[in-house]
């Protein structure tokens, strides 16, 4: 099956792809030449819109009809751009398969996973016998029990669905597997399991792997060679170790810096500061239960005590489902705790909505997704003025808004006032959200994954802004994140949350460099940043 060593599995020769838009042809890929040999692993890194997914789709000619392709794409030495539909269909999946991003949507919701894995086998070798056994075998390879054959996609967890996608990709024994963001939206621990599985299978079978991700650290862990793309061009190309640690191109440097290494002093932006005067925000023995349909309940937060002192940045770290967002909602007074209380200064949080309103001026929220956090119909002015209007703040509204925008470093403010969120970049939108919070002159910010949805190069700027606000305005913050690197970058103290409890907390250096609890150790161990070790362990 494997082609001779001279023939690359996949080769792009000066590939260009343009999409037709109302404004004319927009280039997505602008002349990329790459090649991948048998058993090699190649990572493609880049931010959203850099053309990396288009590259993957072009390999099997899956681009939409309004795409224009130039140059050539060779799969096993055959140019797919000129292939007849029949030959192209015969090549698809049999020679090269794709692990798509977002397995929830890439699997058909009304057919069983076994059925969907079997489909390409039956299609490409109609005479094949023992297909059910083959499906069981494939599921076993991705460590799923045979009983899962009859499951529907929605009955599986995110990690299990992604494994099904991998099993499906291996169904026809292809020479090449293309993985497009295979672990995005998965928890770190699950992400590590999926990546490990993929690496083992690739090594065992000697297939070529092209992996696409926005996260350099993920690529570093599983690929020997990494290229960085920007605006449809390859700007950096080299062994992964070199690209991570000694990037040449400024964009590659920005990408590498965005995923800080825990323990690396260069990535730690925070300077030690003594807590300032003012009230402390605290949760005391807080418990939240959610009733379940049909009786019973789930304990989301279980007797948690946590303090944020004035001017202090605390990172609350945990995986999804650990209860960290529920805890934050309690601190904001949006969620009523089942027992325990939230204290601000000396007083417990008021329960009446009228008195809560006063509290809300002091503790403000910054959400994960700035696109969703801004009403698309409201201009920047209206978005920032919303808080002052609700609270009927005295003084000149326009002046308050301008000052808030200035503090959020949207300068000059006049330029941004009439603009709608859709006309701003992701980083600018997040600044507008922050300005909206600052307009109320709060003493604390609760920031829920404040940079998770932003492009890598913007993350650092927003984090720097949070730190500057702390220094200049004495603003304290509770930063909720799944990302230990982020905690390392900006937090004074770190609290690790697991299954509704805080299992470890303390100064960032202590918790992250000398973890005591097993869960913290686990989280640190699966961080795909320890580049040298992983590449050395790569059996390829």
């Amino acid at each position: 099956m494997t082609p001779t060593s001279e023939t690359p599995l996949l080769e792009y020769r000066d590939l260009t792809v343009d999409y037709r838009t109302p404004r004319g042809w927009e280039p997505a890929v602008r002349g990329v030449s790459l090649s991948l040999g048998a058993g090699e692993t190649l990572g493609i890194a880049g931010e959203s819109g850099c053309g990396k997914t288009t590259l993957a789709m072009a390999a099997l000619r899956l681009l939409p009809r309004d795409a224009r392709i130039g140059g050539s794409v060779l799969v096993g030495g055959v140019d797919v751009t000129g292939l007849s539909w029949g030959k192209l269909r015969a090549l698809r999946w049999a020679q090269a398969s794709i692990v798509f991003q977002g397995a929830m949507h890439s699997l058909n919701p009304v057919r069983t996973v076994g059925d969907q894995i079997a489909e390409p086998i039956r299609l490409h070798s109609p005479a094949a016998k023992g297909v059910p056994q083959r499906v069981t075998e494939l599921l076993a390879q991705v460590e799923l029990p045979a009983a899962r054959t009859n499951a529907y996609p929605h009955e599986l967890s995110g990690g299990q669905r992604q494994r099904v996608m991998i099993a499906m990709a291996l169904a026809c024994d292809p020479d090449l597997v293309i993985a497009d963001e295979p672990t995005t939206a998965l928890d770190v621990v699950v992400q590590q399991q999926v990546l490990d599985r993929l690496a083992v299978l690739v090594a065992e079978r000697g297939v070529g792997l092209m992996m696409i991700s926005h996260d350099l650290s993920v690529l570093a862990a599983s690929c020997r060679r990494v290229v960085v793309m920007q605006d449809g061009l390859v700007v950096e190309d080299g062994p992964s170790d070199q690209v991570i640690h000694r990037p040449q191109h400024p964009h590659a440097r920005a990408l590498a810096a965005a995923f800080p290494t825990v323990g690396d002093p260069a990535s730690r932006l925070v300077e030690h500061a003594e807590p300032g005067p003012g009230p402390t925000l605290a949760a005391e023995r807080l418990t939240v239960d959610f009733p379940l349909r049909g009786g019973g309940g789930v304990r989301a937060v279980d007797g948690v005590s946590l303090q944020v002192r004035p001017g202090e940045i605390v990172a609350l770290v945990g995986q999804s489902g650990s209860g960290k967002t529920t805890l934050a909602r309690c601190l904001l007074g949006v969620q009523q705790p089942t027992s325990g209380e939230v204290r601000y200064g000396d007083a417990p949080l008021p329960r009446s909505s009228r008195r809560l309103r006063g509290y809300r001026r002091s503790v403000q929220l910054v959400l994960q997704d700035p696109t969703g956090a801004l009403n698309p119909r409201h201009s920047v002015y209206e978005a920032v003025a919303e808080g002052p209007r609700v609270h009927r703040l005295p003084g000149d509204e326009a002046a308050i808004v301008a000052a808030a925008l200035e503090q959020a470093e949207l300068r000059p403010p006049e330029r941004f006032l009439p603009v709608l969120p859709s006309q701003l970049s992701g980083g600018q939108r997040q600044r507008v959200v922050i300005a909206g919070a600052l307009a109320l002159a709060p003493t604390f910010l609760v920031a829920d994954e404040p940079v998770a949805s932003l492009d890598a190069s913007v993350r650092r700027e927003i984090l720097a802004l949070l730190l500057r606000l702390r220094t200049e305005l004495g603003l304290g913050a509770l930063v909720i994140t799944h990302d230990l690197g982020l905690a390392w970058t900006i937090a004074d103290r770190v609290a690790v949350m697991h299954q509704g409890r805080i299992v470890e907390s303390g100064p960032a250096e202590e918790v992250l460099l000398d973890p005591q609890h097993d869960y913290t150790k686990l989280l640190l161990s699966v961080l795909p940043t320890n580049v040298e070790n992983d590449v050395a362990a790569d059996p390829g």
Partner: protein
Amino acid sequence: MTDLLPSTTTATDLAEPTKGRAQGGLAFVLRTIGGGLISMALIVVLGFFMFRVLPGDPVRAMTRDRPGNPEQLARLRAEFGLDQPLPQQFLDYLGDLARGDLGTSYKYSQPVTDLILGRLWPTVLLTGTALVISVALGLWLGSRAAWRHGSAFDRFTTATALVLWSVPTFWLGLIVLMVFAVALDLFPTAGMTSPGGVDGFFPAVLDVAHHLVLPCLTMVAVVYAQYLMVMRSSLLEEMTADYLTTARAKGLREDLVRRRHAVPNALLPTITIIFLQVGFVVSGAVTVETVFSWPGLGLLTYQALAVPDIPLLQGTLIALSSAVVIMNVAADLVYRLVDPRVRTR
């Protein structure tokens, strides 16, 4: 009359409640049947209050066109039990209903229950036939139109459906009647059987079929257009789905991508809407039966409202509404067997 809007958004929104609700099997069955029972109870209450509590006086409405003397009115009131206090009337009504007694028709002087049972079969025949043809035609044309989106075929079928949508059922019936029954004399103008009857089983079946053609054609024309639009828009919605890209990447031919992956997903919301819209078909039956004098429940409703015969009207309201509610409960239960997203989890 067209409850269903020609809107792409509606297609999924209306289908929303049955989709993606996580429940255990037995709990779901009990909930669905419980919901149906509540709806039935609402119908019963509605049937009572519509005729007794609303500002209109049923006896005056019934004698509207004939000046009646006070004694007659009083006698009628006593006959309907309207001289009793309201709670007593309600209890009597419930008791009668429990015994299957819907009162006595004012016009026919027969038990309403007997009248309704006698007219049930023609309505089932007409709406059943029309429904089967419409569903088949609508789903087939709709999925073809969506798959060949923007083609001449698509534009033609969509335009036809939009026009048929805008046609009042009764008017279409009148035109069909005038052209095919009166002017061309191809089909009978009224009824379900020829006057005087036909000898033999097969000739009798043919005779009914001959009478069925025009009313059925009229109903199909209006009803299939809706199903076509719903099927088309829900398939168009599926056509951008990621799992279709997966299917293509596997090397499937386009028609397999459509038949195996896109259509099964588009079919499920469509079926829900078809059942939600059964009430619309029943409404159509009232006008079609009136135009073609088809001796079913719709014509009975028309005959009752012309008098107006309040007990009979109340009876047909309860009968038609209950039938629709029962069909929807059955549809919900069947849907759960068909759609894995609702069945398991």
